[in-house]
């Protein structure tokens, strides 16, 4: 599957590991919450970066204490209409200070990429055969935002403030 990270297509070094699959040598893996909870000791001592995949009914609140072990958290959109992960992403970035890769996986659609990015996702798993160039362009659909959120885009209110100050 094509992967976009930080605004460009990149190769994916991670292996999404099924719960029943054997832990491989020397590959960074993404594991489920269940596997993390059962194999914490093994996973944090194997000397590789570790990723965690959360379903949309698994709030990151549950792993708030463990975040230092993860270099990547993948939040799943089982259907694009299930918007819980937007809140999860903001909570991870803004409340829990998670600074690793935040990856959107599952039913990720081009027309939602920008919303995801604004909520703190920096990586997106695209469907097979997605026209990557067009998807990247969708990140440029808007230049103006009203909401101050986690990304560094200045919201309209602060742009207005700057204009007011400049006018004085």
């Amino acid at each position, binding site marked *: 599957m094509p992967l976009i990270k930080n605004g460009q297509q990149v190769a994916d070094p991670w292996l999404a590991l099924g719960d029943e699959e054997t832990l491989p040598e020397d590959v960074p893996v993404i594991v489920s919450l269940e596997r993390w909870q059962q194999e914490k000791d093994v996973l944090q001592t194997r000397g590789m970066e570790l990723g965690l995949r959360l379903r949309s009914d698994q*709030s990151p609140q549950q792993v708030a204490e463990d975040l230092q072990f993860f270099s990547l958290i993948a939040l799943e959109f089982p259907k*694009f*209409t*299930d*918007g*819980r992960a*937007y*809140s*999860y992403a*903001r909570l991870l970035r803004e*409340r829990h200070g998670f600074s690793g890769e935040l990856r959107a996986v599952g039913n990720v*659609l081009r*027309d*939602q990429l*920008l*919303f*995801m990015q*604004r*909520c703190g996702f920096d990586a997106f798993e695209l469907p097979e055969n997605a026209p990557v160039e067009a998807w990247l362009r969708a990140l440029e*659909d*808007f*230049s*103006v*935002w*009203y*909401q*101050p*959120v986690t990304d560094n885009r200045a919201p*309209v*209110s602060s*742009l*207005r*403030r700057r204009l*007011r100050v400049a006018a004085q």
Partner: protein
Amino acid sequence: MYRYDEFDEALVRERVAQFSDQVQRRLNGELNEDEFKPLRLMNGLYLQLHAYMFRIAIPYGTLSSVQLRKLAHVARTYDKGYGHITTRQNMQFNWPRLEDAPAILSDLADAQLHAIQTSGNCIRNTTADQYAGVAADEIADPRHYCEIIRQWSTLHPEFSFLPRKFKIAVTGAEEDRAALRTHDIGLRMRRDADGNPGFEVMVGGGLGRTPVVGVTIREFLPEEHLLSYLESTLRVYNQLGRRDNIHKARIKILVQSVGRDAFARMVEEEWAQLRDGYLTLPQEELDTIARYFAPPPYETLEDSPPELELWQSTSPGFAAWMNENVAAHKQAGYAIVNISLKPEGGVPGDITAEQMDVVADLAERYSFSEIRATHEQNLVLPYVRKLDLMAVWQGLQQAGLATANIGLISDMICCPGLDYCNLANTRSIPVAQEISERFADLSKQRDIGPLKIKMSGCINACGHHHVGHIGILGVDKKGQEYYQITLGGSAENETTLGNIVGPAFSAAEIGDAMETIVDTYLTIREEGESFLETYRRVGQQPFKETLYAAH
């Protein structure tokens, strides 16, 4: 009223470009219908029975004359010459072509209009008291807060895929004209002991198949915390609202299942993290937006000009209109004019392009170029000099817009029903027309007094039937149209849900049933008692008896 600055303008233009591209991708087959449907719904474009339907946002029901003319232009150019005012104070068109959607949006954007979030599981158009800023009973003007909510909720990245749609209503007045407790969030302006403005916050109201009266979760929220508190509430809902069953996905079900106190606690816990953060509204920002809503340049006028009395005594038609359709204004010598879109035998809420132009003209000449749309599907001219009332009445009368029935039995809320809607089970427009014809005599309507009939063509309750003094719900019985009656509902200050009075009536019987209810009321009412007061005193029994006596 609010005017776009360069940022608002840029955003709406970018949205037009984005949606035009989405339409293009649909037409050339890059997107299939399953993929396109949620995208078009996010922009108010439905596919109904006969055609697409386009719902245009009228933020908190406030329109300029230029905007109303633009809507007239859309009606004429891309539709069949009319539009329909909805219970969210929006306007919808029944016959646009998908191919024309980009052009329609581009034309609308020229007048600072758009269709953003008029559908979809996102924060919908915020509604408000149609008398905001001019009502005699106003505690504080809520409009700049509505605009602040509009901006905050527009393309909110976190809350565009909620479990279900989300509706916010605001009022600054004593009398609830915004149906606050039927909304996901209702905000009523209050002042604290020091006179600082803020809000009582109600959540979890809603109609639909599970009607619920909203509950207060905060008695007083200081104004600067408006957005952080809304964001906290939405965040709790976005994470915990049910997503497994579309009929249990509204916030009302969440509030009911955890209980008001527990829900309030969750919001307060989230808010403890967000308050005093970057969503806190600086006074300067509140003031900047409030300046857009500064009072117009009122003249200093005598409050009761003698002309008025003269006109009323010489023209009974004017006097009746004055009594029913004109409301008290907070500025001496001015009045609020309601324009009824419920003419005898008409389609409730419909207005032709020509009528839109007439109203725009009148607004320019007599109401500082401003118009309001009401959730009861009428229009309002908010700033009319009492000295101009005769001219306004005459102008309206020539356009068929002076029916003196605001708040009376023929001023019904009515959904489009099966004549237009894909979800409806039955028609509602023909029933409304029959009722308005049966009660056409305005002197009889005045004798009956305030009576709100609200009618829905299906259980989704777009016509607010649960909160009608008389509610009518269309149900399909083996392919036949039947109508179930509820009595005693109200969306006013003491919001109550109506009770089903008994078995449903056929389309042929429903008109008689309405007359029976009204006759029963007229027989048993006490001096000066309204329909709702009588119902609250006597309950269902007398109505039940007369309605089902012959059966």
